[in-house]
């Protein structure tokens, strides 16, 4: 079937299969920030925004973005780079495989929550797994980036 959507502020018309998943569609179109780490819908690496909401692209059927706005990290490079600098400065970035999905969730949280407490930050980011670190560096970076204690 054919779908029309706005991907990173660009209108596209794509031919997709009925059972195609969004992560596969986006990667096939060259959006290689999309990664998959678990196969069970729980690692958060494939996070994109659909209408501004963080969503697992590995679990979303591609036809469901028809007529919608989708944002990947390629579409918000300035904001992503600003947070990535803080992340690196805190020593939180190691292999980097989970970073695109993690950054997409952090930026979605910034848009959704105002001055979140530590508990709210942890709750929002629970769906993003990192197997290199113990999350403390990420938490320091997020708090610094958001300007919260």
């Amino acid at each position, binding site marked *: 079937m054919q779908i029309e959507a706005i991907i990173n502020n660009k209108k596209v018309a794509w031919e997709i299969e009925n*059972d195609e998943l969004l992560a596969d569609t986006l990667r096939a179109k060259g959006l290689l920030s999309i990664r998959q780490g678990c*196969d069970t*819908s729980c690692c958060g690496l494939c*996070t994109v925004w659909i209408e501004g909401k963080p969503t*697992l692209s590995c679990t979303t059927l591609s036809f*469901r973005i028809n007529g919608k706005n989708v944002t990947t990290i390629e579409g918000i490079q300035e904001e992503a780079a600003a947070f990535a600098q803080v992340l690196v400065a805190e020593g939180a970035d190691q292999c980097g495989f989970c970073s695109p999905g993690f950054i997409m969730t952090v930026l*979605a949280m910034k848009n959704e929550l105002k001055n979140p407490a530590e508990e709210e930050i942890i709750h929002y980011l*629970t*769906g993003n797994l990192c197997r290199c670190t113990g999350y403390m560096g990420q938490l320091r970076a997020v708090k610094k980036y958001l300007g919260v204690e």
Partner: protein
Amino acid sequence: MFTIQQLVQPDTLEEAYDVLTRDISNTILGGCAFLRLGSKKIGTAIDLSKLNLNGIKEQGDFIEIGAMTTFRDLEISPVLKESFNGVLPQSVSHIIGVQFRNIVTVGATVYSKFGFSDLLTALLALDTDVELYKAGRMPLAEFLEKSPQRDILTRVFIKKNSCKAVYKDLRNSQSDFPVLNVAVSQKDDRWRVVVGARPLRAQISQQASEELSQGGASPAGIASAARLAAEELSFGSNIRGSAEYRKAMCKVLVERAVTEVLQCK
């Protein structure tokens, strides 16, 4: 890997039901969160996105939740946060992550009667009805007891009242499926104790509910109700916990939930 041969997006429920009942391999799509974990061969997939079944509304004496409403919608709903001590948002807030909760839908979860469901346990503690396109409206408890019928769950209705409620769960780690979950509600003298993820689906403990409703929630009454719930309900073993462990933890969670309900305003 699952497959979908054809896809339809009906404009009416009548059309959706017609396609559903045409062939056994035709399937209604919910959030599709579990679809990729299996190898289902779907003939015609029926997407309900065009039927305005998403959203949470206060309608007269009920809160109405559309079948395509996501768990994240429940979690952040101001109406639900203010109702029944926020028991519904609490029940879904620890399921995987926010990205997952932005996908899974109320209708698919309730219709599927998942044993591990957190939401079913909380809904069953409230005065909840479900609406099916063909079978009509019925109490959730009745729907859960019915044998599976091919139908479309369209809405969930929760009676607006002064019911106080608390949800408790036990998880081996944050965001994992629950080992056990409990919801307890109180409206005036009527108590209801629900235990889910046993790992069988949520069920009301009639004996525990009656014990509290008849005898009141004194410390002895609470201990007795917790023991009755553990004795009355059946528990099973799976990768997350043994039947014995679940039975022992049932008493603990029921006791805690009842005690917390007493502190609710």
